[in-house]
C-alpha cells in the first residue's frame, strides 16, 4: 500500500517538506519509488507562469535529440534547471545522465493560437516526445505544461531526494504532491509512478483499481489522444477527473458521483436524482470498485481527496489557514504541519470529497448527498 502526501501553502515550499513527510510514513511504503508533482511554482519559475515547462529524464544523446526537435519547432529555452547527479547513485537508484526541468518560450507561429489550442498541442507534443523516447530509450518525459514540474524515480524517497539535491532554492512550489510506492501490480516503469498528469489535472492513488481494464478500454475509446499510457491502474483516475471536469463540465463535486455513484436508495432521495441517475447509467464504465484513496490537484490550484465506496484506505486532511496538507497517515501530517489545530483534522468517509481551494483558508467538505452546483 503506497503512501501519499500533498500540501498546499501560501508560501512556496521545498519538495523536501513532502519527502520528509513520506519518510515518517516509511513503514507504509517499501522505498521502491517516489513521484513528485509541483505546481504554482516559486523561485525563478514564479516569473514565467505561462511558459511550458518540460520535465523528464534524459541520456546525453536523448538531450541532443530533444534540443534538435524542440528547436526545429521553434521552441526557445527560457530557463533550465539541469540536475547533474553524482556518478554513483545510492543503492536502489538507477544511474541516469540528466534530470531536466526546462521552461520554454512558445514558437512565434503559436502566437495566433488560442490558449486552449496551445495547451492541447502541448499534450500532443508531450506524447510525441514520449514516443520518441520509448523508441530509443533515451528520454522519459513526465510533463510539458505551464507552471508544473514532475520528478519521478525508482528508489527510496529520501535517498532519491538527497541524490537529486531537491533541497535547492530554485525548486519551490505552493502545491506539492508526493507518493512513496509500495509494490506494483504491473512492471516497474517510471511512467507507472504516481502522480499522473493530464492537461492540468493530476492525481495520485493509494490502493488497487480492480476495474482498470474496462475503464482503460472505455477511456481509450473516447477518441482523445491524452487518454493513453496506462502503465498503472491508477492513471485512469486522472483521466476520469479530466473527462468529468473538462468533457462533462462538472465541478469537482461531480467526480465522486462518477467514480462512486450513490446506491439506488440514496440516489432516489437526492435533490438532483434525475441528473445523477443519468450520470450513473452513462458513466457506468468509470465506476471504481477497488479500495482507493485519491488525492488530486485541479487547474485552479485546489487540492482534493476522495475515498472509494467502501473506504478501505485511510486518508486525513488538516492544517491551518494558509497551509493545508493531505496525507495517508496522520504522522505525515504531524511532520509537515505540527502546529495545526489537530481537533480539526478530517478523515473523509465514503461520501465525502475534501477540498482545499486556491485561497487555502479552509477544508471544504462536500457530501455526495448534497445538492450539486448548477451545471456550467
Amino acid at each position, binding site marked *: *500500500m503506497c503512501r501519499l502526501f500533498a500540501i498546499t501553502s501560501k508560501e512556496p515550499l521545498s519538495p523536501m517538506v513532502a519527502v520528509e513527510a513520506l519518510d515518517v510514513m516509511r513503514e507504509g511504503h517499501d522505498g521502491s519509488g517516489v513521484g513528485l508533482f509541483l505546481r504554482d511554482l516559486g523561485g525563478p519559475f514564479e516569473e514565467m507562469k505561462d511558459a511550458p515547462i518540460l520535465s523528464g529524464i534524459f541520456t546525453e544523446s536523448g538531450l541532443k535529440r530533444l534540443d534538435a526537435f524542440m528547436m526545429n519547432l521553434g521552441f526557445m529555452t527560457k530557463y533550465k534547471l539541469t540536475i547533474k547527479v553524482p556518478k554513483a547513485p545510492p543503492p536502489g537508484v538507477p544511474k541516469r545522465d540528466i534530470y531536466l526541468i526546462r521552461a520554454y518560450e512558445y514558437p512565434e507561429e503559436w502566437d495566433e493560437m488560442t490558449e486552449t489550442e496551445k495547451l492541447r498541442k502541448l499534450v500532443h507534443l508531450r506524447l510525441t516526445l514520449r514516443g520518441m523516447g520509448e523508441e530509443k530509450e533515451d528520454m522519459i518525459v513526465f510533463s510539458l505544461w505551464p507552471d508544473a514540474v514532475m520528478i519521478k524515480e525508482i528508489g527510496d524517497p529520501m535517498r532519491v531526494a538527497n541524490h537529486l539535491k531537491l533541497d535547492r532554492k530554485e525548486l519551490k512550489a505552493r502545491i506539492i504532491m508526493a507518493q512513496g510506492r*509500495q*509494490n506494483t*501490480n504491473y512492471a516497474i516503469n517510471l511512467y507507472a509512478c504516481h502522480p499522473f498528469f493530464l492537461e492540468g489535472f493530476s492525481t495520485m492513488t493509494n*490502493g*488497487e483499481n*480492480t*476495474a*482498470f*481494464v*474496462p475503464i482503460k*478500454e*472505455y477511456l481509450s*475509446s*473516447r*477518441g482523445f489522444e491524452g487518454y493513453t499510457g496506462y502503465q498503472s491502474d491508477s492513471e485512469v483516475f486522472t483521466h476520469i477527473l479530466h*473527462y468529468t471536469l473538462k*468533457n*462533462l*463540465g462538472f465541478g469537482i463535486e461531480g467526480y465522486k458521483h462518477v467514480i*462512486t*455513484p450513490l*446506491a*439506488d436508495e440514496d440516489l432516489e432521495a437526492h435533490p438532483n436524482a*434525475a*441528473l445523477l441517475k*443519468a*450520470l450513473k*447509467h*452513462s*458513466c*457506468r*464504465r468509470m*465506476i471504481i*470498485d*477497488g*479500495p482507493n484513496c485519491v488525492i488530486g490537484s485541479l487547474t485552479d490550484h485546489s487540492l482534493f481527496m476522495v475515498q472509494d*465506496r*467502501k473506504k*478501505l484506505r485511510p486518508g486525513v486532511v488538516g492544517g491551518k489557514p494558509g497551509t493545508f496538507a493531505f496525507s495517508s497517515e496522520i504522522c505525515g501530517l504531524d511532520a509537515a504541519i505540527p502546529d495545526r489545530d489537530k481537533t480539526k483534522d478530517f478523515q473523509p468517509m465514503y461520501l465525502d470529497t475534501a477540498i482545499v481551494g486556491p485561497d487555502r483558508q479552509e477544508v471544504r467538505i462536500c457530501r455526495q448527498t448534497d445538492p450539486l452546483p448548477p*451545471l456550467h
Partner: protein
Amino acid sequence: MPSNRPVTPSTLSVKDLPWQISWQKDKCSLCGSCTAVCPVNAIELGVFRKRYIHADIKPAGSSSTGYDIFYGIRQKTDPAYACIGCGMCSMVCPNDCIMPLKSDEADKLRFHIDRGGQPRRRGGRRNNGASLLDRIKFIRISMLTDPALDAGRHEFEIRTLLGRVLPPEESLRHFKENGWVPPIREIYPLIIGAMSFGALSPNMWEGLQMGVAYLNETLGMPVRICTGEGGCPPRLLRSRFLKYVILQIASGYFGWDEIIHAIPEMKVDPCAVEIKYGQGAKPGDGGLLMWYKVNKLIAAIRGVPEGVSLPSPPTHQTKYSIEEAVAKMIQSMYMAWGFRVPVYPKISASSTALAVLNNLTRNPYASGLLIDGEDGGTGAAYNVSMNHMGYPIAGNVRDCYLNLVRLGKQNEIPIFAGGGVGKNGNLAANAAALIMLGASGVVTGKYVMQAAAGCLGSEGDRCNICNIGLCPKGITSQDPRLYRRLDPEQVAQRVVDFYLGFDTEIRKIFAPLGRSTSLPIGMSDALGVDDRDIADRLQIQYVV
C-alpha cells in the same frame, strides 16, 4: 413371440434401443405404477408363458414338460415407443425393482427414428456435456494490495442495465435540453430466458411468475422473466406484475393480438420487449409449438385454432433485410408503448452477429442485443439443427464486446448472452465468465427447468421430449394429467432458492476480484483458461 415373426430392416431388439429397462421379477409387487407413469408407454404389463421341464434322473422314471405363466414388465421395441430414460418408473416403484439403464454401445434406434420420412425432432439438449464456460477460471484474486472483499458482509449492488445508454456527453445534453432519453431498466443480471408460451405448462408458468414476483416484491431482487413467443395471459397483462415480464414478439406474432388489445388497460409497462430473430439451438428455424400442446387455452391466447402445429417462419417475413427489420420493428414497438419500454432483438449466435450489432449501434432506439449460443435449448428442433448448427456463445459475445470497445460504445448497447449458461450446473461461474467476457447479463432457461421443476433431461440424451407434450414432470405439457404433477407453489419456492443461491455464489466470485458495486463487465484480466488457442481467441490469459 411367434416363430415366424417378421424381421424387417427396421425391426429393433431391446438391445438396439438407447435405454433398456431393468426389471427384477423377485422384487416386483405388480402394482402397475411404472407402466401407468411412463410418458411414452415404453413399458407395458406383460403376460409371459414359460415352459418348464421336469427330467427324472432314474432311467425308468418319467420326465414331463409343462407350461406356466407369470406377469411382468415388457419393454416395447417399436421406435415410436422407445424408452427415453426419464426414470419416472423408478421414481414411482415402491420396491426399487425397475430402472432404465443406458445402453453400453451406440444405439441403432437413431437410424430408424425417422419413420414416415420425418427426421427426429427433440427438445432441449445437444447431448454434449463439454462446456467452454466451465473451463474458464477467475484468476485475478486480490490478495495483498487489495484485500479480497467479504462476500457476506460488504455492500453489493448486483444490477445491470437493460436499455440504450447514451454516451455521457449526450446524456447530459438531453438532460439539459429536456430531450427524449431512451428508457433504461436496472435489472438483475440473470434473466429467466424465453420459453414459449404454450410450451410450458400452466403450472410451470404460474410457478415461475410467482417466484419472480416474490423475488422482486419481498426480497428486492429485480429479477425478470421473458415470456417467449406465444403471448401472455390476459390477467397478467393487466396486472401490476407485468413490469417483471419481458414480452417476446417472434416471427409468428402469436398472442400479439391479445397483447395489443390489452395495452390501453395495462396498469404498468412491461419490463421490455424482445424481438426474436433467432434461437441458438436452431438458427434459421422459427419456433414450433407442436399440435400436442395446442389445447383450448393455448389456442385462445395465441389466437389460433386448436390442435394444429404452430410453426413460426425463420425470420420476420414482412421485412426485406435485417437492417430494415431491426429498425422498423424496434421503432414500432417503441411507439406502441409511447417510447417508454426498451426494445431489443434476440439473435442466434453466428458469424454474422457482428453485422446485426453494427447495425444496432447506429439505431438510436435499439436497447440491447441478446445473443443465443449453440447450447441454447429449444423444444422441437431437428436433430441436425441441435447437433450441427449454431455458434458457441463465448467467442461470439467476446467478438461483439470487443467490437463495441473499438467503436467506443461498450457502455451503450448492453449485450445479453444465453445458451449453455449453467449447462452442467455451474450457473454462477458460467454467468460470471460471460459477464467478464463482455456480456451485461445472461439468460437461462434450461437451468431453470432443471432447478425449479426437476426436469429429468440430461446431456446424455435422456428424456428430450419437451416438444411432444409428454413431459413426465409436467413442465412442458398441456395435458392436465401430466402437469398436475407439478405444484406451482413448489416451483416458486425453488425459483427463489436457486436465485438466492446464485446471488451468494456470484458474490463469492465478484468479491475476491474486488468488485461489489459495479458488475465486472469486460473485466477480462480476471479470466484464465488452460488452452492456448482458446486464450488467444478470447483474448484472455493462458494459465496452466
